């Protein structure tokens, strides 16, 4: 349960940082915003959904999805 509390704090913190980052209109904000989203996504899947205890196939599948999604957004954007 302690691990879940830590993950929750990190997720909330990253959400607030992302909101602040977007207001600053930094040059590389897009990388930061997508990066924070990916970290939060991994936090939810691996810890809240307990994917870390699942078969490697599912962990790799979710990471491949994230890789394709992130690459597409960054290349097109």
């Amino acid at each position: 349960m302690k691990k879940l509390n830590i993950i929750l704090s990190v997720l909330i913190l990253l959400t607030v940082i992302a909101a602040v980052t977007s207001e600053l209109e930094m040059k590389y904000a897009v990388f930061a915003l997508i990066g924070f989203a990916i970290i939060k996504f991994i936090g939810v899947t691996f810890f809240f959904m307990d994917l870390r205890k699942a078969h490697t196939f599912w962990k790799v599948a979710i990471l491949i999805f994230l890789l394709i999604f992130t690459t597409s957004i960054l290349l097109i954007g």
Partner: protein
Amino acid sequence: MNKNIYYPPGGILLWIIIFLELITFGMALVAMVYYDTLEPEVFHTSRLQLNSTIGTVNTIFLIVSGYFMAVSVRYFKNNKVKKSSLFLKLTMLGGLLFLILKSFEYSHKIELGLTIGYNTFYTFYWLLTLFHVIHVIVGLVILVSVHIGINKKKTSTNIEDVEASAAFWHMCDLIWLLLFPIIYLLF
């Protein structure tokens, strides 16, 4: 926890749905980013019309709700049904708060005339966020049914049912984690 490839937490069928949903929303978001390159001014001014504070608070509602769901599943696994039920109620409260705030945001946009046909940005905004809201409503219905199930004296609701409902609820969370930065913060 079963490490069998056919039994991810929540069940293989639900994970197939999760991947299909993620791919669908993912492709729509990639399309949205592509259209931004065609109409950058429209997307930037439209994005600035959105209230990022509401988006941030809604993200926190869903994250905290997902946390309560994870705690509820852990209590259920340890046969602490009352505590599991309490955290399930808190999970639903998070979902309800999300919907209330989203309704407030939608009504404000409609009042300003920023409807689905206003411009390309708002077409994506309405389609993606409304599709997500439908998922949240379906998720809430599933959670209510699981809540009723686990509180029955002679219940057939087992850990697989609770885990499956949790996986669906977390999916709503995951979709929002991709929608929020792109729609509310990126352009």
